[in-house]
């Protein structure tokens, strides 16, 4: 059991866990101590000196974020000496660079401004604007305004400790200090991977998004907690909207998977997507397609389905399909219509071990990490942050891949799939090996990995967003295009896979494409059903750890687009096979299938 020590804060008797800092103990006991450089997700450095407290017996005021508690300690958090010191610190912070609020993007969401209000900073005490700093606008997604920087180093710590990318650092000394990328090169040309974590931890307006700048502070925007659907990790997000438009996406600090982190794919790319959207159902007449109503589209589809036999119907589910849609496909097509030709657009990684999968956070506890036939750095970046963090702490990474792998530069060994036995030998000698493998794994490699069954922890890194659920529902076997006369393709937000996809659709089949964006497939399709995208629907996804997480609607769908599952539900009603679906029902079904 953890050792407890008694102490007093502002005369109140409290108990602290030995080793805890004064700040943590105060927070636990509902005693407020102001902070600026401190961030719950980062290690404390005591740089800003806002959290100063008076400790009996100590000659000077101490930073509570770094000072550990001791038995019988007597602490004052709001004595005159403390308040005077904090005000002096604040006056000094405000005097350096430009902390004038009205033309700052972060006014209203700024931690420095909050402190100014708290301690009533109503004029500059010391000379200000003595030196102008540059603005770095070279990055595609965010601005680095050095004039607003308070040198709290949160961005640097986030880049080091959370993302393990080590792009940001500090140069010069004292008031000349500046945050820089890669030893002073423009941020846009640096090794920055655009995950945006630095912008999320910045307490002031020094790092902020270009796209949503000056579009509204928290008090006028809406924040909707959701789940990112750009890869199979399923990071928790907070979608910020105003007037029915998405302004930006933030990582949810409370989310169990990513704990606040996001990557370029999740934070920025969905906002910069320029693919043309589909907004109305389209029916191909003689040669050209025309816009029709949903009612007519569903009627047409039902009629098509009713005129052919079950073995002539095929369904292909895309990587983005929600749990609800996949469940409906199973219920409607497989169970009610007796369709067995159901497949997935993307590949499914094989199951190798007869034991329960680990969680992503367990990667940090391992000493040898094997990445086999998958490329998390490019495909599931947040998973690669966790791997890189473990490597920073001394874990050895072995990458086994025949293709160019993003994690290769961080690896202790890079091995081709054929030589996997070398990696197995190393892993066997390790105490706590961890394996992440994907669909690119070869049969021979599977046999070798099997040898580690006893001691290994593992995670299957599916390349498809919701492939875990699709596989769990058994939708990945038995697709044979030979006899098909109608193929229902649930493409969603996925890019049309080109020839690979068309090989699986017979030439003369009636193609139904449920898709969000215009593509080669929707051009060829006989019936197009417009699908809502990530921000426009409420549904759920299953991540690679098997967590079922909900996507919540942040804005209304564009045009007449509908969530993937809603279209299937309409179809089931039209066919007289009404299936009620609720998120709870789907969750139960998916959880049952995963066991």
């Amino acid at each position, binding site marked *: 059991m953890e050792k407890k020590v008694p102490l007093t804060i502002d005369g109140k008797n409290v108990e602290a866990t030995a080793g805890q800092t004064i700040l943590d103990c105060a927070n636990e006991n509902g005693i407020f101590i102001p902070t600026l450089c401190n961030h719950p997700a980062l290690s404390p450095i005591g740089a800003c000196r806002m959290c100063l407290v008076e400790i009996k017996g100590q000659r000077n005021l101490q930073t509570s974020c770094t000072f550990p508690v001791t038995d019988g300690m007597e602490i004052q958090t709001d004595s005159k000496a403390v308040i005077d010191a904090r005000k002096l610190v604040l006056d000094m912070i405000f005097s350096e660079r430009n902390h004038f609020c009205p033309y700052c993007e972060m*006014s209203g969401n700024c931690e420095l*401004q909050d402190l100014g*209000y708290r301690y*009533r900073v*109503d*004029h*500059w005490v010391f000379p*200000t*604007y003595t030196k102008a700093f540059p603005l770095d606008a070279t990055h595609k997604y965010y601005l680095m305004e050095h004039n607003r920087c308070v040198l709290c180093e949160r961005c640097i710590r986030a880049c080091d400790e959370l993302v393990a990318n080590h792009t940001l650092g500090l140069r010069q000394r004292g008031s000349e200090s500046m945050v820089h990328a890669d030893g002073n090169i423009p941020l846009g040309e640096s090794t920055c991977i655009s995950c945006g974590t630095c912008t999320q931890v910045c307490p002031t307006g020094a790092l902020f998004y270009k796209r949503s700048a000056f579009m509204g502070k928290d008090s006028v925007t809406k924040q909707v907690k959701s789940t990112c659907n750009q890869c199979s990790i399923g990071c928790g997000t907070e979608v910020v909207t105003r007037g029915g438009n998405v302004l930006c996406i933030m990582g949810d600090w409370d989310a169990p998977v990513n704990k606040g982190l996001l990557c370029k794919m999740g934070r920025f790319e969905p906002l910069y997507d320029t693919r043309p959207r589909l907004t109305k159902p389209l029916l191909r007449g003689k040669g050209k397609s025309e816009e029709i109503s949903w009612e007519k589209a569903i009627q047409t589809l039902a009629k098509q389905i009713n005129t052919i036999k079950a073995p002539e119907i095929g369904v292909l589910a895309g990587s983005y399909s929600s749990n609800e849609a996949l469940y409906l496909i199973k219920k409607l097509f497989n169970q009610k219509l007796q369709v067995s030709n159901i497949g997935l657009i993307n590949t499914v990684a094989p199951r190798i071990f007869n034991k329960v999968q680990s969680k992503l956070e367990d990667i940090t506890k391992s000493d040898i990490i094997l990445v086999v036939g998958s490329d998390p750095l490019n495909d599931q970046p947040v998973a690669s942050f966790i791997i890189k963090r473990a490597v920073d702490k001394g874990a050895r990474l072995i990458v086994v891949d025949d293709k160019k792998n993003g994690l290769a530069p961080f690896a202790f060994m890079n091995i081709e799939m054929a030589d996997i036995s070398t990696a197995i030998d190393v892993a066997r000698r390790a105490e706590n090996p961890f394996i992440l493998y994907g669909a690119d794994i070869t049969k021979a490699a599977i046999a070798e990995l099997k040898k580690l069954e006893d001691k290994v922890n593992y995670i299957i890194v599916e390349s498809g967003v919701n492939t875990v659920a699709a596989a769990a529902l058994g939708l990945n076997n038995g697709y044979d295009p030979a006899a098909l006369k109608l193929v229902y393709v649930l493409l969603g937000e996925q890019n049309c896979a080109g020839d690979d996809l068309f090989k699986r659709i017979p030439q003369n089949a009636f193609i139904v494409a449920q898709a969000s964006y215009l593509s080669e497939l929707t051009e060829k399709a006989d019936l197009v059903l417009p699908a809502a995208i990530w921000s426009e629907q409420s549904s759920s996804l299953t991540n690679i750890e098997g967590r079922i997480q909900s996507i919540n609607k942040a804005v209304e769908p564009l045009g007449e687009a509908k969530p993937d599952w809603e279209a299937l539900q309409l179809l089931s009603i039209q066919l007289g096979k009404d299936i009620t679906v609720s998120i709870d029902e789907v969750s139960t079904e998916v959880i049952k299938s995963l066991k």
Partner: protein
Amino acid sequence: MAKVKIATDWLAGCAGCHMSLLDIDERIVGLSELVEFTSSPITDLKHPPKEGVTVGILEGAICNTHNIEVAKQMRERCDILIAVGDCATFGGVPAMRNLVGTDVALKRAYIETESTVDGVIPDSLELGRPLDFVVGVDKIVKVDLFIPGCPPRADAFYYALTELLAGRTPVILPPEVFTYD
């Protein structure tokens, strides 16, 4: 009882703070039973009376020699000087030019703007000389009360004046009207 005299003036500002003062609306009728607005940029009398006023209110930053004269005259002729608005308290928008320098700012404004042909930087002796550095009023004269805000809320003006009339000092603005923007 004689009315309490108030004088206001503006320096390098935009008149927005004076507009906000007028935004106290009908309460100004009740207020004018207790106070007399002597001089202001929007009255016939432009300079505070020589015999002095109790409260002087200054809007705007100090950015030229003329601003210094006005600020000094107000300070000499009032008992309590209030700096209102972000320019008077922090330097505000005019202080943005500190980040590039006065010469560069003048050149850009009068010569280099895209719409300017044969521009000249005004240098009449009647004009105040621009300072190298824009500062808040407190860097030139002693200020007794700061009311920040861009503009300060009308309620902040009203609160401060009624507190002073009631003889309560120092004036501590309530959090809902203590604002920077």
